């Protein structure tokens, strides 16, 4: 951490210390702070950089404006509770106070005065479901020309682009995802490029702006992609990378440039000699990876390629937070567990391209079986995200078919607390534990059943969806006045979810 040792900490430094995991550049003294012109500094005098030219001067140029929906304190009583903290509580009680989980326990747990009691008998409660791989908003519905904003497929390295700048908050997929229990999503750029750009974590509430959904204090991700996609896209243009080895050269070249860029800023901040480096958005993001403030979300199907990516990370001194579409994670499960890398997987998808050939339904179960593992089920799909609970159930069934003993109260982790860990928000949500955000789903039945529907979805303790109350079934602007709008399909009586 670099700061001026001869001065008291500037406000920026205080912010830096409080934030904890901010980037190196983020922790530098900001030139436009009052102290910067302080003649007592041991550093040579220099003019402050013009607005916007120092990456440290504004660490958060697109700040979250997220506000929880109006809420009341709630007690959910009588349900079967999967805490995602290792337990299943029959006839449980979940207390939510001021948007936070206040208590989780058995029937003896006292309900504080003033809490609205929700009858959970016959129903199930889980933490809000987290999808770590979503393209909602960036590849929205309708998927038509003019709305396809997920891949800046113009160069193998577009680390400078941010998915949040492509998010269309009116994507109807946010609403259907919420009706499937999704409370938090990590929205990523596509996988055409080696470096697709920054991913962003959002709270799944209706909002006019992206900033209104953006999760405060959630780390950014960097989408990286191994394998067939970058080499196909750029090889098809007779450009590098055209091969797997071209991919690796591309990753390494980019981190060499980023290390160099970081060294230049560090030196300039240290001695102030010469001109400051010109700010470079691409390298800025990669420097965030190098200093640990931005988490690598690495699309990588094959086990052998994951092993190479781990070596690249070691070469340049960064960590991979999660492999996505990790269809061969089961082949490297002990290594992934040892390295502390999450594996985000599907259950049923396979065979659509060569690197997906060896996908197996038992993948999550085998990854999860390792000590210290982090198995995650993700969607990458606006339909699948509505049913991540069922995708987990199919994985559990496959693992049991193989003879493994898998408890549902553990498997729920794959779309809750492990997913939170994969995107660096496990201290805030992902399990029903006191102090965490009140992100909760009440299911009509066991969520491992195909017949279970999300009855009610709470985000930060606020009711954001209610299957039986049209007042809590939001519609996007896009849906207004479309064919079928306002009409309810006629179905037979006495049917539906159990």
């Amino acid at each position, binding site marked *: 951490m670099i700061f001026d040792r001869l001065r008291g900490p500037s406000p920026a430094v205080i912010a830096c210390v409080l934030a904890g995991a901010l980037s190196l550049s983020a922790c530098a003294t900001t030139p436009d702070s009052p102290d910067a012109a302080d003649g007592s500094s041991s550093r040579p005098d220099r003019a402050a950089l013009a607005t916007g030219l120092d990456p440290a001067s504004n660490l958060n140029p697109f700040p979250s404006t997220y506000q929880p929906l109006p809420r009341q304190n709630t007690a959910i009583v009588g349900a079967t509770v999967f805490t995602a903290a290792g337990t299943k509580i029959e006839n449980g009680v979940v207390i939510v106070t001021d948007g936070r989980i206040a208590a989780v326990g058995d029937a003896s747990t006292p309900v504080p005065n003033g809490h609205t009691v929700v009858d959970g008998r016959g129903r199930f409660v889980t933490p809000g479901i987290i999808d770590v791989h979503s*393209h909602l908003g960036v*590849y929205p*519905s*309708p*998927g038509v020309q003019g709305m*396809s904003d*997920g*891949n800046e497929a113009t160069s193998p390295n577009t680390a400078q682009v941010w998915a949040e700048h492509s998010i269309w908050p009116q994507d*109807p997929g946010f609403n*259907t995802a919420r009706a499937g229990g999704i409370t938090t999503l990590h929205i990523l750029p*596509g*996988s*055409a490029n080696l470096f697709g750009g920054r991913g962003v974590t959002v709270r799944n509430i209706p909002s006019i702006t992206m900033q209104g959904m953006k999760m405060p204090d959630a780390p950014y991700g960097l989408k990286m*992609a191994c394998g*067939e*996609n970058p080499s*196909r896209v750029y090889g098809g243009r007779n450009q590098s990378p055209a091969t797997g080895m071209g991919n690796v050269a591309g990753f390494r070249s980019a981190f060499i440039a980023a290390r160099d860029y970081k060294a230049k800023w560090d030196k300039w901040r240290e001695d102030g000699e010469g001109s400051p480096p010109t700010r470079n958005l691409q390298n800025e993001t990669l420097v965030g990876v190098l200093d640990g403030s931005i988490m690598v979300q690495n*699309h990588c199907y094959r086990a052998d390629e994951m092993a190479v990516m781990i070596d690249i990370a070691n070469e340049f001194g960064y960590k991979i937070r999660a492999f996505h*579409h990790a269809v061969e994670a*089961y*082949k*490297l*499960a002990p290594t992934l567990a040892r390295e502390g890398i999450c594996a985000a997987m599907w259950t049923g*998808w*396979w*065979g*659509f*391209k*060569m690197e997906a*050939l*060896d996908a*197996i339904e038992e993948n999550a179960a*085998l990854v999860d*079986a*390792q*000590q210290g*593992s982090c198995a995650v089920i993700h969607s*990458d*799909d*606006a*339909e699948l995200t509505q049913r991540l609970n*069922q995708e987990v*159930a*199919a994985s559990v*069934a496959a693992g049991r078919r*193989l003879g493994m003993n898998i408890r549902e109260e*553990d498997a729920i982790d794959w779309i809750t607390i492990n997913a939170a860990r994969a995107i660096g928000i496990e201290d805030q949500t992902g399990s029903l534990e006191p102090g965490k955000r009140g992100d909760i789903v009440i299911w009509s039945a066991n969520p491992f*059943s*195909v*017949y279970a529907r999300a009855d009610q979805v709470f985000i930060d303790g606020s009711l954001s969806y209610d299957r039986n109350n049209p007042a809590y079934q939001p519609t996007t602007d896009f*849906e207004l006045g479309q*064919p*079928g709008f306002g009409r*309810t*399909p*006629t*179905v*037979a009586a006495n*049917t*539906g979810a159990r």
Partner: protein
Amino acid sequence: MRRLMLSAAIAALSVAAPALAQDTVAITGGRVLTGTSVIENGTVVMRSGRIVSVGTGAAPAGARVIDATGKTVSPGFVAVDSGLGASEVSSVGGSDDQGNSANTISASFDVSYGLDPWSFTLPVARQGGITRAIVVPSHPGGSGGHNHADDSDFAGVGAGGLQSPGLFAGQASIIHLGQGTDILVKPRVAMVAPFGEAGASVAGGARGATFTLFKESLAEVRLYSRNKAAYDRAGLRDLSLSRADLEALIPVAEGRMPLIVTVDRAADILQVLRLGQEEGVRMILDGAAEGWLVAEQIAAANVPVLLNPIMNLPGSFESRAARMENAASLDAAGVIIAIKGNEGSIHRAKETRYNAGNAVSHGLPYASAIAAITTNPARIFGMAGDFGALAPGAAGDVVIWSGDPLEPLSVATAVFVNGVEQSMETRQTLLARRYMTGGTQANGMPVAYGN
């Protein structure tokens, strides 16, 4: 974080070879879903490849008896709008024989000649309870191909990665998924043509052009059909279709072969129904995302629908009214529906049962959901009574399930096709077993030496 708890017995058990057909097999004690009813503690008897009785009686003397107590017994499921046996790895061109792009072989394209009984997709589908499939030529607007959002910018969304320049994509086949050298049950059971956006793009851009092209094509077929001798001596005006395509379309023009029409928009559905009446063509609607808006009209036209009930997003402007309740609404109106698997029902044909379950959770009666993956597909493709039901005389396609077959937590424990018990081994189960000990063998040798 959790212990690997594997019983050694399981590994030994799962490599059991498929049993050869003992002539008479009786499955007893299970909850039997016949396709049209439910029998508790039922007995299903198969002999010589067919079902001979379904009821509550005792197993016949001498039969191989399989105790299904506590389990559910169902007909094998039918994958409709499928590419099983016709496509191995979607992105590998040489392994895909589901679509043809020569404009002289469009309607005449017959998928049956490209079927591969050794396809590794078949055991995976079978493990999901699929025992029959309607293999349909891939076509613009169809549900084939991988619509993975990450890849969508360069894989061709909705086109299945394949373009057929003609309006007609070719002819579908019925296959069974039994092990052996011949999976073909019946070739040329239906013709395929895209309408809606995809059909418009084939015809020149506008929906209206598709209808003109279709009518003009059938006019040529009728002209050819009446004047084959003149055609052969070049005494007929020039026709835009090849002779092979003209020949293939005769049964469609005569109403003998149904036409699978890919169509989603409610307005387009109405026009397709009108076209069917005007031309005397038997229609099967494929997709019908907005079908619920015109359910009464579809029912009145007595036109069946192949649909995926989990399509609920306005993915395009022709599916803006897509709803999870589509299947339930069509069924309630009296439309015969068949429920599809996902992404062209090849690799993910196994998910057909989950789609049926999700239709149930959105209002489709359970019995209708079972019918939509068993008896209805057989009925739609002219095979009622021949397969898709547990009834005397039907093929011995039977699946024993650990529980409710629509539940993802349930697994198939035994699958019979034509009365023969099938191996439950797939390429995927082989991989899973190879790596279940963490990628190393106890003897220090690479797992590659493990088989």
